[in-house]
């Protein structure tokens, strides 16, 4: 049996899955001051009367990291940059003022100019004096040559031993220096909190006799063993929306194109599944205005939900983004979309007379009947959602392309399904689907789809290998691994073989080797390096991926 638990913004949902069946679900409130407590209370209700020995896997998805950052509880992190030539580093507008060091590495990992030890010492002193206990050291192109970052860390450990240093190349090897800096800072800022949470969660499970492996859900819909995730807490940000998407993947037919609509109290999260593959945000997640390298589903949040305040200004209805309390029908102070849905007989979540009274406020301001006002409120909500979905498809179609095949291959996509999850979705999703000319799907267990998604999600992994045969070296983007690559005449097949081996090793390190064979080559290209009319080497790029997916046993007899 699999357990999935999603600690969301308002509720904590849990589901128990046996083979291809959902055998039990539980829903409880989330207390932001006590994420672990919320998790355990709901889980205890779920596993009550269940033989815990039969639990094979527990998958958690939490808002822990999101909350830490949003509530300013993350730790202060100092930033040391080795930017070299190019953009003025002050133009990046980091939240903290970076210390800039001389020294530079170029795009192929060759040192352009050396570091200066006196500057490093002074930087360590200055940051220590300012009371920093954690410092991110990030160099431009240092993912292709680690020497500068390593040297700075070594000097810091002597000059300021109290400071914990993390290096950019260990967090991400992807191109984009400012994103790498932001991701490294966020990693440092949340890692200790996360580690404490993970340890406590693990202990709590063991105390309950659960011996099964515990996993955490990442923003890209993949699971990672909890103990292997300790170094990479930011990858778990936005795991809530990822859980919903995985839930829809689990509860809808395979291979189709669907819009995932998760309507909550004040926000609606939208995501796309294109021909069975969840759409990833092309460059990485944006966390509190900070652009990062975190691989995440492209989730769009709009400030509209069942409890959003409905107002009338200049004869027009506006909905949200704020919440004044519960719906009028449940004793709240202002009319809400939920009240309008009640008036139209689309839901019965409260007192009808109160709902009519609430919508009556809107009707009076508009000078129309209560029914007409209710229809207009619902139309406004549906319109916002439909517009955003269309915009998301358009943006996907308009994503830049750097190769001819990329440009020619992408065709227009339209949704086949609109799948609603979350509490407020059932009455609204059919209306959205109708406008998009798609089939509305409200899966069984829709309110806890995210917990189901977590329970049945499988691991994901990417591996991006670049081989520079002229320099005789290779780098792996994901963790900045750097090594020697022999053989000038390495073929593409040879490079793919090497990528496969590296991926397997990486999967073993992360305890997900069972899935290594599922990895597919998603992209590979070879550049002949020509200098003075003769070929001096090759640059080979190979990208492999274990894509987001659902555990086999769930798919078992489900089919469509």
């Amino acid at each position: 049996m699999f357990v999935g638990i999603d600690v969301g913004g308002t509720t904590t949902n849990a589901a128990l899955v046996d083979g291809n069946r959902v055998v039990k679900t539980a829903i409880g409130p989330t207390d932001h001051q006590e994420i672990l407590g919320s998790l355990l209370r709901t889980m205890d209700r779920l596993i009550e009367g269940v033989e815990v020995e039969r639990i094979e896997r527990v998958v958690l998805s939490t808002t822990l990291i999101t909350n830490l950052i949003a509530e300013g509880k993350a730790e202060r992190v100092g930033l040391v940059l080795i930017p070299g030539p190019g953009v003025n580093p002050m133009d990046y507008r980091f939240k903290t003022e970076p210390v800039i060091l001389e020294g530079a590495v170029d795009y192929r990992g060759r040192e352009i100019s050396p570091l200066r030890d006196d500057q490093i010492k002074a930087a360590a002193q200055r940051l220590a004096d300012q009371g920093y206990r954690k410092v991110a050291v990030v160099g431009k192109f240092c993912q292709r040559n680690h020497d500068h970052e390593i040297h700075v860390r070594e000097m810091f450990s002597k000059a300021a031993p109290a400071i914990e240093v993390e290096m950019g190349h260990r967090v991400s090897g992807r191109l984009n220096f400012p994103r790498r800096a932001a991701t490294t800072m966020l990693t440092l800022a949340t890692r200790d909190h996360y580690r404490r949470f993970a340890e406590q969660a693990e202990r709590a499970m063991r105390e309950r006799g659960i011996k099964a492996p515990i996993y955490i859900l990442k923003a890209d819909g993949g699971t990672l063993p909890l103990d292997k995730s300790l170094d990479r807490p930011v990858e778990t940000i936005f795991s809530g929306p990822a859980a919903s998407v995985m839930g829809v993947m689990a509860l809808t037919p395979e291979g189709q194109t669907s819009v995932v609509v998760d309507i909550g109290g004040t926000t609606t999260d939208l995501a796309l599944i294109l021909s069975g593959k969840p759409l990833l945000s092309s460059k990485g997640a944006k966390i509190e205005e900070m652009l990062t390298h975190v691989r995440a589903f492209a989730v769009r949040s709009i400030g509209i939900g069942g409890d959003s305040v409905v107002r009338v200004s200049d004869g027009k209805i506006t909905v949200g983004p704020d919440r004044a309390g519960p719906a009028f029908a449940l004793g709240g102070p202002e009319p809400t979309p939920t009240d309008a849905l009640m008036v139209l007989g689309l839901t019965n979540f409260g007192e009808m007379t109160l709902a009519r009274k609430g919508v009556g406020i809107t009707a009076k301001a508009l000078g129309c009947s209560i029914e007409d006002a209710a229809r207009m409120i619902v139309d406004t909500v549906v319109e916002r959602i439909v517009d955003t979905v269309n915009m998301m498809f358009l943006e996907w179609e308009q994503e830049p392309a750097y190769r001819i095949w990329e440009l020619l291959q992408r065709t227009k996509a339209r949704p086949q399904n609109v799948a609603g999850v979350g509490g407020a979705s059932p009455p609204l999703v059919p209306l959205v689907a109708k406008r998009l000319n798609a089939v509305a799907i409200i899966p069984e267990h829709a309110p806890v789809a995210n917990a189901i998604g977590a329970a049945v999600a499988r691991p994901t992994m990417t591996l991006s290998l670049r081989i520079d045969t002229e320099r005789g070296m290779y780098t792996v983007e994901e963790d900045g691994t750097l090594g020697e690559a022999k053989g000038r005449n390495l073929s593409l097949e040879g490079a793919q073989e090497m990528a496969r081996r590296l991926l397997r090793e990486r999967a073993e390190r992360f305890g997900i080797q069972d899935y290594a064979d599922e990895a597919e080559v998603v992209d590979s290209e070879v550049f002949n390096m020509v200098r003075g009319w003769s070929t001096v080497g090759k640059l080979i790029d190979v990208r492999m991926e274990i894509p987001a997916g659902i555990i086999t046993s769930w798919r078992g007899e489900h089919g469509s």
Partner: protein
Amino acid sequence: MAADVHSKQEVSKIDAAERRIEPPVRPARTSSVRKTGLIFFPAFDWAISPTHPEREERLLYTRDQIFEEGLMDFPEIVEYRPRLAELKDVARVHFCVPDVQSQVTEAHLIAAGSTLVLADALMRGEIRNGFALVRPPGHHSMRVVHGNRGFCNINNEAIMVEYIRKKYGIRRIAIVDTDVHHGDGTQDIFWHDPDVLFISFHQDGRTLYPGSGFTSEMGGPLALGRTLNVPLPPGTTDEGILYVLENLVLPVLEEFDPQLVFNSAGQDNHYTDPLANMRFTAQGYARLNEMLAPDMAVLEGGYAIESALPYVNTGIIQAMAGLDYSNVREPDYVPGRFVLTSEMRRSIEATVNHLLTIWESRDDLVAKARQEHGRVYSRRKRIFYDTDMITEGQEETLRMCTECPGYLTVSTQAARGYGRLNTAFCVSVPLFACSSCIEDAREEYEEHKSEMKYDYVYLQEKPSDRFRAYCTRTRNEIVL
């Protein structure tokens, strides 16, 4: 340049109304939008041949640099997706023999299409300027295309110019060609067009491909002085090129007062370029774009793919987006490394002064040409296609119309070695042609269709945006 855009807008509005073309849209630089539009299309899956300078690897390090800098994430920059230009967009500029399809690959259509995406964004006011960082390049492609010359098949800027003029009713455009090679293709296409100012500065044609671009090349008889060529001595530095910009290009632009300014932005003036001998730096390129402030820049050549392009492109993008570019520098560059000799300086000053004289007397030159040539002007040309080893002979004839720029015919024969390729007769009617030129041009097209003298006969009618191609062997006419 930005001054007085309003009244010029109104002028073109009247033109548009008279000619029943779409009403003009305000060019973006008059609006408050602050974004720079960027299309980066490195065509990682296209090459002329595996070891050719125009190969997959060319923009690889540039990609690494601009992505690593995080430039695409800046709020001042917005990245667009390229699209394919339509065959008609190509036919609006070129006579492709035998047809457009056989002269272009998808890569060419995407490079040209990228400029059109940015042109639309500019004219819709979404961006204040744009940079098409695309390959393959285009500025050596002439009006008639039998093959590839100077790494170019079709002319990206020219296709953009005619697209914008047709779609948005813009009339007066300036193209400044900052590639180290003479922009002979663009010059050929706009040679007779008094509404397109073409200024090219480049390494002296006596020392570099394509061996043209001398001050004596100054435009067709009705467009004299609207083509200005600035040959520069090998070894010219930032100082020399910025001198040309300040003392010739900017004053001439101010007087010409174009509605739009384009930079045909080659990067091979760089001191490390393997195919040329100039001494321009990344800082120089950034400064140039800041001063010129083009509405659009389109990449042309530049083959120092490691030592120059990553830095030059970073600098240009920053300059166009109004970001600080002072930190951009090549690894081996130290300030003061290159000095402009006094001899070079004198030579450049003399060239600039000579060109200013031509510019100032442009109307007199046209008047004189009218007297001299009467009703018809013609010239013969030989054109060599270095990439495809094709030799072309042309006879160009211009109707010296008093009402409009006049229509043009080109008779062309191409050969490869001793093997005859194709012959064609091309009739080009400019966008702002008068009705009698349109009528006479049609007649000439019909006449040549019935003769068997040429393999192909073409009629390029820009006012009606119709492009006809007739094969005399199959007697088949295709209309785009």
